[in-house]
């Protein structure tokens, strides 16, 4: 049974967590994700879930406790943002290398410094090589949907990797939208029960986890971990197919918006996709063949899918809400352009860094990107591929 609800992004995440009913949640407050453990502890206090809530003293301990709980045989979840995930850093790598299917709600925020509590993607981008599956959400509905799919992906025997579900801090986390949720029983059935093969609390089969892993073995273990990320691609699509059957809502690696005949397009993630779609609608009315590609799954990176989607374009702009600080461009830009090269696609491409520290990104900003793309098409030249959008001073 479908239920119409008005929920903020954080409420949507907490609602999904209530319906998933994990065995353990360990979390620490940090803006803008704080509401998630707040809502969730009220579910715990009022007996709406069976979860043991561990109110840890830091995010490092939040991830450590999730690792302990998941290794013990439990389903463990957490939520955090920015510096909170920075503090988890060491443990993110340990969680993925121990192949523990933990699910995290990451409410994207700028990583210090200086201190800023508003949205950008520097937190998630810094963890892009940590071995976590990273899925981005345009709006509150997608936050909810992606969380419902997360455990099915993470716990698949071919995958066994942790998953983070990202959404934009404040922009979606604190904005209320009409969304459609499933009833508790339907979610319970869809998510399924968790039956790990090996776990610490199985007294019939004691196991040891987290060895000293030296030159003779670590490489093979890392190779297997890398393979799991490759295998995750098909699993993500399979789970999305099942989810579509259940809800009618369709998900893939990317979403293509008006791309069939597009000549120029922007590639972006999370809530900016909404602004970009709106801009494209207006440009289309003026006869400009513009399109949008929203990257939903960033890890594993769908290089081939993106290359295919843009191969017929005359120019493309890749919008990054995190700077690469590498004298080349944003992380999405460098991934997309290398994906183009290895798939034999050559389209003039520019990198735009935008929205840093919660700087608003408006329709005018996106229009400016498309105007510049038209200029590139006209001249056939990309004179400066590393650019900024909406910043004072040199762009």
């Amino acid at each position, binding site marked *: 049974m479908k239920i119409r609800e008005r929920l903020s992004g954080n409420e949507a995440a907490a609602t999904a967590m209530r319906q998933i009913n994990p065995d353990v949640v360990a979390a620490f407050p940090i803006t803008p994700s704080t509401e998630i453990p707040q809502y969730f502890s009220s579910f715990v206090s009022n007996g709406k879930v069976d979860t043991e809530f561990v109110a840890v003293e*830091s995010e*490092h301990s939040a991830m450590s406790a*999730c*690792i302990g709980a998941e290794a013990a045989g439990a389903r463990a979840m957490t939520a955090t943002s920015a510096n909170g995930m920075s503090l988890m850093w060491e443990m993110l790598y340990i969680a993925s290398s121990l192949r523990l299917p933990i699910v995290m709600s990451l409410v994207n925020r700028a990583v210090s410094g200086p201190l800023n509590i508003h949205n950008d993607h520097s937190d998630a981008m810094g963890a892009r090589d940590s071995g976590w599956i990273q899925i981005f959400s345009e709006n509150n509905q997608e936050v909810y949907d992606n969380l419902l799919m997360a455990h099915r992906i993470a716990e698949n025997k071919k995958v066994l990797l942790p998953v983070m579900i990202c959404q934009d801090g404040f922009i979606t986390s604190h904005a209320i939208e009409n969304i459609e949720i499933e009833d508790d029983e339907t979610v319970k059935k869809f998510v399924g029960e968790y039956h790990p093969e090996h776990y*610490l609390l199985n007294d019939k089969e004691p*196991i040891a986890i987290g060895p*000293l892993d*030296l030159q003779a073995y670590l490489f093979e273990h890392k190779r297997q971990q890398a393979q799991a990320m490759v295998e995750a691609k098909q699993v993500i699509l399979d789970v999305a197919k099942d989810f579509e059957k259940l809800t009618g809502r369709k998900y893939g690696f990317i979403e293509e918006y008006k791309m069939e005949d597009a000549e120029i397009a922007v590639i972006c993630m999370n809530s900016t996709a909404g602004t970009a779609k709106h801009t494209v609608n207006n440009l289309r009315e003026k006869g400009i063949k513009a399109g949008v590609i929203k990257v939903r799954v960033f890890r594993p990176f769908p290089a081939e899918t993106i290359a295919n989607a843009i191969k017929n374009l005359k120019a493309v702009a890749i919008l990054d809400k995190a700077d690469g600080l590498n004298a080349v461009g944003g992380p999405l830009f460098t991934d997309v352009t290398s994906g183009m090269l290895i798939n034999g696609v050559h389209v003039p491409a520019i990198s735009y860094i935008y929205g840093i520290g919660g700087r608003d990104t408006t329709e005018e900003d996106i229009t400016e990107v498309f105007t510049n793309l038209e200029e590139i098409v006209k001249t056939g030249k990309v004179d400066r591929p590393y650019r900024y959008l909406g910043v004072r001073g040199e762009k």
Partner: protein
Amino acid sequence: MGYNLKEIMAEKPSRLTSGHRMCAGCGAPPIARMVLRALKPEDHAVICNATGCMEVSTFIYPYTAWTDSFIHTAFECAAATESGVEAAYKSMKRQGKLPQDKNTKFITFGGDGGTYDIGIQSMSGAFERGHDMVYVCYDNGAYMNTGIQRSSATPKFADTTTSPAGSVIPGKMQSRKDLTEIMVSHHIPYAAQTLAVNNFKDLYEKAEKAIYTEGPAFLNVLAPCPRGWGYPTEDLMLINKLAMETCYWPLYEVINGKYKINYKPKEKKPIEEFLRPQKRFRHMFEPGNEWMIQEFQKEVDSRWQALLDLEEITNKEE
């Protein structure tokens, strides 16, 4: 309950098996073995270990010396990791996802580096939250795994590789942190300090109390290190005995806030006897450095007196 070492050794096989790669004369393995022997044979345990000597020499892939379930994650978060395991146990048992007739106990081991220093936050957090677990610190007074660097558990004047006894600075110039007292201040049901002497009786009995007291329990166990302290490997037990007889390492326990000193030497031996056999204190015996020994003695005396006072105060009739 009577304590008979021979019977315990016969009836309770070691749950940390031989073949691990700890050094000869190291204080840590006998501690781990004896703590685990305090488990009831029918109880399962999940051992968590902070990164350190013990971890890197007992679980080198693909071999493990631990017969119980075991997890190691990182240096500073053994208590947090174990708290997650314990939370999973509580949750899953409550939901009927685990057998109801079987008990699992949670025991964490960490060296002084992973406990006094980098791990103190996660341990403090876990203890405040009241997880039903035991944390055993095997205190060898420095970062031995990385090559004898000073920690906040290193005694004053000790020569370590980051507090070398030089011509200007004669070793570590700061006093040792009193972690047992910090843990007592968490108002936990059981905290104790012990070491391996007299057939391990004190250690065994405290481990048993710690494991079977509901809630968080802390054991601080002196674990001499032949490499870092500079004593012949066969002198391990002698060093332990001297630590106790000089009151450098008092044996005591705090049960729900009440102090009990478990051993009061009839005649407290001078601290020199503990310091002299250890190379890390060698420079203290050079001519002109007598003040260092005097200062060390003064600190041992004042800490011992403070403990005697605490015992008296906390046991006063209302």
